[in-house]
């Protein structure tokens, strides 16, 4: 249910109106008139019908006046016009532009035939139609220099955009030779080479008045134009061949002018807005890149590239400190071992042995001296004893009593006078001292007492 589209009556009517009016802007209808009535307003209302259908139709006062015959019920007619929906009443009607008795219009036949041929050639193909320049600088206009159309157009253009270059190609727009002049106008404007768009048109009029715009030469000229062409013929419902082949159809000349010329202010604003957008886009682009670049440039690895170096430097310093420590430790260890060995060496010094040796030596030396001294003492004693005894045994003891002892020079003791001769030296030993004597004479007898 949710996808059910519900329209109001007005909405539906509006859609119907668009479809109908755009589909049938200009149509020829054949039928029989009934209920023909002219109101006091001058407008005529009637019904067109055939065997199975009927169509409301209205003929406004201006058209009524142009009729070349007296319409009435039962008449078989051709009607040309557009379909309009009248929403208030919920019906539709044909707004009739032209009304002719059936079988009368040779112009009509020619119109239909030309339209069919051109259509077959594809000249009405929407794909062929060129877009209008949005901002034309030079506008060509083909119309009568004295008609209402040029006045209307210049007024509109003047009001909206002061700085435009308008070239008017003057041309008769009705009557004999009008088509040729229109063709020349289009060609002349194209020959100028710099016309951006061409408006071809005139005010409204009867079918005959407008006929020049139904000529094939005009249609061909429009198709051949290098500049896009806007047709602006008549008022509202006047449809011509020119309208079909033109790149755009404007209902009136002033409408054509409005289509071509925009408000200058809007154009100026458009340009400055574009320039603004251009600069903004570029600036934004640069800013974005700058941000991206700055974001990268601010990254620590670029702003502080020495950071990893510091870690490495610390590692090197650590290693250095450890190295020194370990090196000194190695030396210390070796020194400790050496010190222990040296201490033991000192403890094992032969100094103590020297002291012991000295002690023993001293003892021995004392013993040597003692032994010798003892030996000498014993010898002294023994000698002393012998000498003492010898002293007491001296044979010279008798001398003290007055005896003396006489010896020869040879030391022989003189015991008899015969032992010496006179003159012989003798030595006399006394109790005290001695005498050195010479023998005077020898005596056989002396004066001693006989025993």
């Amino acid at each position, binding site marked *: 249910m949710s996808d059910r589209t519900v329209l109001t009556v007005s909405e539906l009517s509006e859609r119907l109106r668009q479809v109908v009016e755009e589909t049938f802007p200009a149509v020829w209808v054949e039928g029989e008139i009934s209920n023909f009535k002219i109101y006091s307003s001058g407008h005529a209302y009637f019904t067109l019908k055939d065997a199975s259908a009927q169509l409301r139709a209205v003929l406004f006062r201006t058209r009524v006046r142009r009729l070349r015959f007296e319409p009435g019920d039962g008449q078989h007619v051709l009607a040309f016009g557009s379909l309009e929906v009248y929403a208030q009443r919920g019906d539709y009607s044909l707004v009739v532009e032209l009304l002719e008795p059936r079988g009368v219009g040779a112009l009509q036949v020619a119109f239909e035939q030309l339209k069919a041929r051109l259509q077959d050639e594809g000249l009405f193909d929407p794909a062929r139609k060129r877009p209008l320049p949005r901002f034309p600088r030079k506008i060509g206009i083909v119309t009568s220099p004295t008609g209402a159309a040029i006045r209307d157009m210049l007024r509109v253009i*003047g009001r909206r955009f002061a700085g435009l270059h308008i070239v008017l*190609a003057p041309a008769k727009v009705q009557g004999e030779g009008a088509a040729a002049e229109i063709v020349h106008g289009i060609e002349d404007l194209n020959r100028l080479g710099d016309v951006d768009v061409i408006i071809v048109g005139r005010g409204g009029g009867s079918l005959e008045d407008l006929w020049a715009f139904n000529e094939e030469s005009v249609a061909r000229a429009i198709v051949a134009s290098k500049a896009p062409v806007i047709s602006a013929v008549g008022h509202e419902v006047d449809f011509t061949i020119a309208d079909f082949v033109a790149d755009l159809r404007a209902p009136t000349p002033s409408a054509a002018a409005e289509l071509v010329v925009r408000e200058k202010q809007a154009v100026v604003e458009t340009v400055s807005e574009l320039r603004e957008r251009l600069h903004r886009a*570029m600036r934004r682009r640069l800013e974005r*890149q700058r941000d991206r670049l700055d974001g990268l440039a601010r990254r620590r690895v670029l702003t502080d590239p020495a950071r990893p170096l510091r870690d490495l430097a610390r590692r090197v310093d650590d290693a250095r400190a450890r190295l020194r420590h370990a090196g000194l430790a190695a030396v210390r260890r070796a020194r400790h071992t050496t010190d222990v060995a040296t201490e033991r060496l000192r403890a094992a010094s032969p100094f103590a042995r020297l002291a012991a040796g000295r002690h023993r030596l001293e003892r021995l030396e004392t013993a040597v001296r003692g032994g010798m001294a003892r030996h000498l003492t014993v010898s002294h004693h023994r000698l002393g004893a012998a000498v003492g005894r010898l002293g007491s045994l001296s044979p010279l003891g008798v001398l003290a009593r007055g005896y003396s002892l006489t010896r020869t020079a040879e030391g022989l003791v003189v015991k008899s006078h015969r032992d010496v001769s006179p003159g012989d030296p003798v030595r006399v030993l006394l109790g005290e001292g001695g005498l050195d004597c010479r023998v005077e004479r020898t005596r056989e007898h002396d004066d001693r007492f006989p025993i």
Partner: protein
Amino acid sequence: MTDFRFEDCLTRLEQTVTALETGNLSLEESLKVFEEGVALSRHCAKYLDEAERRLEILAKDETGATTAGPLGWNAEDEA
């Protein structure tokens, strides 16, 4: 750019702006496009500044050649 019609010029300017705004261009391309855009926008502005109203009417001279002559008529006066 002399021969550009204002119309084309403006169209290209719009394309330029769009191209820049979509941001698919490299910076170098953007700069190039931007400079072109600046030139285009100047061109357009100049055109608008310099535009002056001219009214001319075509006429045939003695030789039959079509010439454009001033149209001495002021529509605004009648408005």
